[in-house]
């Protein structure tokens, strides 16, 4: 595997700040908006977004929750492993709110489809938007398009994009792994 750093810690912080300002542009003081990050890996990104937003808007009350989509996936019984779920923490009402879904990497779009289903169990939102840190824009299986993107990455399906976080991996960075035999 050949590893290439797509984003380092400094670039990531710039992107976080930019994305937060884009959110504020569209959601004002967040009184009518809620943020849901997707378990398990989208939560680290969501936590950073929520933290940065609270720093920029100390007065605003930002509703931030975590959504697990395991039970709504369309690949249950098509994998070798049964997926064990993560916790869902949604302590607010999403009925008639603007929901911002947050995940780290958007690839096939299937997780987002499951997330839309999972979210509807909590009510009918007025509008749903999608924010992703990395958009692997090729090989989408479903018509899913993000509204806010950290970085767009052109990659082939044999490659892997992995997001590492300071909280779990000791350092913030995003790496594109390419199998050696595919390298020209």
């Amino acid at each position, binding site marked *: 595997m050949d590893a290439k750093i797509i984003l380092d810690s400094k670039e990531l912080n710039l992107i976080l700040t930019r994305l937060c300002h884009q959110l504020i542009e569209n959601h004002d003081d967040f009184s009518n908006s809620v943020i849901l990050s997707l378990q398990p890996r989208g939560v680290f990104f969501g936590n950073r977004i929520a933290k940065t937003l609270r720093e920029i808007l100390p007065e605003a009350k930002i509703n931030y929750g975590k959504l697990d989509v*395991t039970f*709504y996936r369309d690949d*249950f019984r098509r994998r070798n492993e049964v997926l064990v779920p993560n*916790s869902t923490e949604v302590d607010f009402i999403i009925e008639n709110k603007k929901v911002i879904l947050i995940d780290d990497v958007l690839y096939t779009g299937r997780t987002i489809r499951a997330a839309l*289903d999972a979210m*509807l*169990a909590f009510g009918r939102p007025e509008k749903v938007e999608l924010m992703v840190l990395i958009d692997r824009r090729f090989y989408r299986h479903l018509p899913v398009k993000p509204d806010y993107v950290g970085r767009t990455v052109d990659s082939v399906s044999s490659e892997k994009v992995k997001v590492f976080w300071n909280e779990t991996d000791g350092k913030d960075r995003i790496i594109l792994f390419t199998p050696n035999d595919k390298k020209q």
Partner: protein
Amino acid sequence: MSRLSVNHLIGIKDLTIEDIQIIFQTADNFKNVINRPIKKVPSLRDITVANIFFENSTRTRLSFELAEKRLSADVVNFSASGSSVSKGETLIDTVNNILAMKVDMVVMRHSSPGAALFLAKHTKTTVINAGDGAHEHPTQALLDAFSIREKFGKVEGVKVLIAGDILHSRVAMSNILCLKKLGAEVMLCGPSTLMPRYVEHLGVKVEYNLRKALEWCDVANMLRIQLERQDIKYFPSIREYVMQYGLNTQLLESLNKEIVIMHPGPINRGVEITSDIADHKNSIILDQVENGVAIRMAILYLLAGKVEG
């Protein structure tokens, strides 16, 4: 880590500690799901489950049916009364006919110990044991241990008393095995005639005095007398049993500590526990029922992942 070591749920005996932990972890999430405005998830939408009950049941059957429906499975129900069993059809023929209608999983209760294992060996389906005679009732034991874990934050080291008709109780057997696996201390209490022989070999304490047993425990699981399984008289009269082994408020309040009351149902009010004990603030009987749905959802979900599509 995320895979059960078994393909069927026949008894607690076959489960590893890791299996039980995976079931609990999954049940935590399903408990969250069943407390949402929309209590249904689509996980088992391509699975059909048959609930085959050769013995009477209220809670277990309803609980399984709700669990299946909340996972979006298709459900068919079968009870022996009113079926062709009375015309002399055998168990395997009955089940194979149901399976020929493309059923993926079977939940079965039967009065013969070993019926679930027999079915798992001789048919091509996933079997969940909902009680086989006086042998095992694994989902009840799992929901009891799950309720203890919820109340105390852990099962390890908790002192659990199981009192009543131990001899005829599949709940007692499965509970002993499950609680011992999870590191709880277990004591049994009941008339000596209703105590199985050599039960100490399972690593449990035996006490014949209910007051002493209650003084020892943190949780008391009060079992019903299974008159339907008693072919001879095991004690002189119900009245005498109540005086010796019935739990009432006076006895509970004379203890120098608070204990949690559990009961697997159905309750015979005024026999093993009085009415006010059943409704007492320390009783978690209805929490057990709620947790039963979450536990059964977890088991169905984890086993369905192994059904060939």
